[in-house]
């Protein structure tokens, strides 16, 4: 981590840049690019760590000064955080040591992410070129004047077939606000089995409480689906936050062991208040098949310190 002095300057710089940035903030890639470009696009581990620190500092400061912020802004920040952490996580893979398919997938994901970022930057550059052209062209006004009556009189006689009622019916159709079709494909028709974090936490407790340290592999051995694995992982993080479990790791990248440290009995009922979801629809504690990126961002931040 950075020293106190560096943190001080970083915060100072970040404050001005972020404030400027927020005036024409146009999306997570925008902010991400801004953060990275201040490190001159040098996506090295250190730069990213600093960027992440600045980013988190910004979030904290914004919350401290404003109390709260606009939801859309906050969610965009979360996407940035997730993206940054994805990049950062991908960086942790030793480039030469690609061993299994998951590593390859991760590397591909990293390339894709970076490609998207470069693409976005390219479009941003070109948008600036187009803006200049629009400005320059805006100084020329096209001749666009009304036709003289001697010409409009020559237009073919208008065929008018609408009664006032037909005209009104058309007006009603036109003036009724249209129902916007959603951009995203609807997922309401998907009936993914609902897996509850609370239930899985109970399963974990049953496995861990008898004593001894278990690996995540062991803890998910009986999982019926990938969704259950994911939810069990989330439950583990919740339990860790509540101090009910501890993690042990002998060496970097070695297997992580989980040990029960909580009180006996059901310690999980504190879970429902926690918002792992992002839409506030009231079913936060339940995770369905479509959950993913948004939840990842929230939990990754707690893990961030471990790899620096």
């Amino acid at each position, binding site marked *: 981590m950075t020293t106190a002095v560096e943190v001080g300057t970083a915060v100072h710089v970040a404050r001005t840049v972020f404030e400027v940035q927020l005036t024409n903030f146009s999306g997570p890639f925008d902010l991400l690019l801004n953060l990275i470009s201040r490190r001159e696009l040098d996506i090295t581990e250190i730069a990213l760590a600093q960027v992440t620190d600045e980013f988190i500092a910004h979030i904290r400061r914004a919350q401290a000064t404003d109390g709260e912020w606009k939801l859309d802004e906050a969610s965009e920040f979360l996407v940035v955080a997730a993206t940054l952490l994805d990049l950062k996580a991908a960086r942790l893979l030793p480039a030469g040591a690609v061993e299994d398919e998951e590593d390859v997938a991760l590397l591909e994901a990293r390339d894709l992410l970076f490609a998207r970022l470069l693409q976005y930057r390219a479009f941003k550059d070109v948008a600036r070129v187009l803006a200049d052209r*629009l*400005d*320059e062209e*805006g*100084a020329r*006004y*096209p*001749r*666009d*004047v*009304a*036709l*003289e009556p*001697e*010409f*409009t009189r*020559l*237009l*073919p*006689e*208008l*065929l*008018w077939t*609408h*009664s*006032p*009622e037909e*005209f*009104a019916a*058309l*007006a*009603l159709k*036109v*003036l*009724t*606000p*249209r129902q916007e079709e959603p951009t995203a494909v609807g997922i309401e028709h998907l009936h993914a089995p609902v897996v509850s974090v609370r239930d899985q936490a109970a399963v974990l407790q049953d496995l861990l409480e008898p004593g001894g340290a278990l690996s995540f592999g062991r803890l998910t051995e009986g999982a019926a689906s990938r969704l259950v694995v994911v939810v069990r992982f989330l439950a583990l993080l919740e339990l860790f936050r509540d101090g009910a479990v501890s993690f042990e790791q002998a060496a970097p990248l070695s297997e992580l062991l989980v040990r029960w440290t909580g009180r006996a009995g059901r310690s999980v009922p504190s879970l429902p208040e926690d918002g792992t979801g992002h839409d506030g629809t009231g079913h936060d504690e339940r995770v369905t098949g479509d959950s993913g990126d948004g939840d990842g961002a929230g939990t990754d931040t707690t893990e961030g310190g471990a790899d620096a």
Partner: protein
Amino acid sequence: MPESAGAAPGPHPAVEELPGGVRAAVEAILMVADRPVTEERFASVLQVPQEEVLGVLQDLRREYDGRGDDDGYTGVGARSTGPTPPRGFELRSIAGGWRIFSRKHFAAVVADFVLDGQTARLSQAALETLTVIAYRQPVSRARVSAVRGVNVDSVVRTLLQRGLVVEVENDPETGAVLYGTTALFLERLGLDGVDDLPRIAPHLPGPESLGEYDETTY
């Protein structure tokens, strides 16, 4: 108007120093002006004495009309003299102002051009735009666009040419032109007045919610 692109209001370089000088500046205005422009207006916009403006306008008119060998040309644009054919446009002094029109000789050609592809029936887009103007008048093009979700400039032009709508006033706040329907429109529908249009209001958001469209989309 304040947000017009590239046209910074306030002091600008003296027109005399721009290429073509006052003469070209007058031409620039004439080419885009939709209605006759008075000499006073030229003088105040260009910050040039009115007599000079008049001189330039008269020179331009003569120049556009073409000139024979000895017509006492005193134009600013130091052309060498010599017979010149007329241009396809002419500068006319009408209704107390000056405006450029296509030259009369070419009326037949211009008519062919204007009538090319014109039909007797209004397009669906024109009809729908007309309903918005009829029920929301006076209304700006921007707001009609917001309601219809597409640009309506050329369609409004058609309706203007057809005499179904007309510019009624300017929005006191934005300065935007507001449109309304005409007597001809009522005649086509067989109505005595706009109030006789069948009512559709109860089902629809009122004007105040349309205001929001404007705010959020422009």
